[in-house]
């Protein structure tokens, strides 16, 4: 479904990598801080331009697309730090997420999000700046789902959340997975990520150093000691 082979400029964090995601797969991208994970998602989402190489999505070359074109092609990104619009209400944030779909479909998607995220429904008309970290993360994910993406990417969804909320985020990922959605997720919490991922890539200093199924990689303790830097707890 998604294929990425690319080379990045000397200043950028990621160099020579290739990565693929199949339809209905949950793929993790793990690695220590500064490994280039965010750069990589940013490139796939169109925020950054690859210096060479291609991004292919559903058989089409989408390299160099602007973020809005990427979204219209079917790729959505839940950015690092959530980046919700704090001055806009919860429902307005969701509407912005669904800005590319027709208005009838947008309102049925709003109903869908209200069912999926009861916490948000209760705060529909509250400015999003008043949400707690966990609520804000749910809003960021719901907002991305509003565009009906065929590939949903998340950048560090559990970052900065209390342990109980980290559980909530991974339950959410699990339930999105059960719905058959295709996910590409960057996570520092390697163990938790590998538990829910079908496959994962380990990125370090801009290079892919391992690839395998979640269970395979979980058993490779060497990876955690050497590459992930002991963040496996």
């Amino acid at each position, binding site marked *: 479904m998604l294929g990425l082979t690319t080379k990045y400029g000397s200043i950028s964090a990621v160099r020579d990598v290739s990565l693929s995601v199949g339809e209905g797969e949950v793929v993790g991208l793990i690695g220590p801080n500064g490994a280039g994970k965010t750069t990589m998602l940013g490139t796939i989402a169109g925020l950054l331009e690859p210096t060479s190489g291609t991004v292919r999505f559903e058989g089409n070359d989408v390299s160099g697309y602007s973020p809005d074109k990427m979204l219209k092609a079917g790729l959505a990104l839940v*950015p690092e730090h959530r980046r919700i619009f704090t001055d806009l209400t919860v429902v307005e944030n969701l*509407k912005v997420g669904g800005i590319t779909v027709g208005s009838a479909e947008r309102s049925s998607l709003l109903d869908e999000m209200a069912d999926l995220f009861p916490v948000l429904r209760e705060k529909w008309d509250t400015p999003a700046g008043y949400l707690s970290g966990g609520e804000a993360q749910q809003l960021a994910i719901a907002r991305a789902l509003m565009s009906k993406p065929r590939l949903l990417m998340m950048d560090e969804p559990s970052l900065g959340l209390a342990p109980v909320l980290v559980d909530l985020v991974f339950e959410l990922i699990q339930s999105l997975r059960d719905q058959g959605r295709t996910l590409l997720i960057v996570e520092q919490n390697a163990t938790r990520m590998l538990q829910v991922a079908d496959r994962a890539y380990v990125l370090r200093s801009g290079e892919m150093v391992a690839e395998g199924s979640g269970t395979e990689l979980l058993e490779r303790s060497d990876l955690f000691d050497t590459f992930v830097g002991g963040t496996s707890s």
Partner: protein
Amino acid sequence: MTELVQNLIDGLGRGSIYALLALGVAVVFGVMHLLNFAHGELITVSGYVAYALFNQGWSWFLVAPLIVVVAIITSLVIERLAFSLVRGASDFTLVLTSFGIHFLVSAIFIMSVGARVKTFSEPGWIANTFAVGPINVEVFDVVVIGVTIVTLLATVVILQKTMFGLALRAAAADFDTARLMGIDSNKVIRGAFALSGALAGIAGVFWLMRAGNTAPSSGISPMIKAVLAALIGGLGSLKGAVIGGLALGVAEVVLRSQLPGEAAALTEAVVFAMIALLFIFRPQGIISVSHAERV
């Protein structure tokens, strides 16, 4: 007391025009971080078009809506020819570009139609007044305030109730994330310039009615008022821009009438001194905006 009420009405009339101009500056600043010193040129261009139409025998009734259309088109053309080229550049580059456009437009008019002031007649009703008890109210002030209220309400509806308004507010809050949501940066920036142009056009109608003339340097005064009002209100805040415009108008009128004798000539200087004081105590302006830093 009577005089003060009268001054207040005059000041709100004048301030309404400033408010519409400042709101246009704030809308563009919101999405692009551009403090547009070329904003007054929308009135210069509209003024010359109005002058040409008056020479053809057109009446204010027909010219007024056309002024708004011309301001919108001019705003979009300036965006396309100049600001689109420096999009994403530093704030300083953007400000310098807008200054460049300001001087360029003046120069184009000096070279093509000459530096002399072109006059046209004001609408007949502009000096009419009516009495409310002891207070003499200018019809012009009432019209300006009324149209401004309607325009502001329409702007609120556009910003709050339409998808375009939502896109504009999202882009102003966090441009990159708005793009990730599928918002086309070209469309939202052009939309902001169109809205800014429409607001300047409506303000421009009243500005030109009052001035009764246009010249290559006509844009300077509205530009200064617009930028000042936006700064007073708190740059980036739409509400602040409106408050800033009204405050500036009232301050000017009240000072001009209350300062004793010769000192009235110093109104502008006193206004600037007051603004300087405001910035010492509130450098962020009346309403502060704390948005994520733009990349």
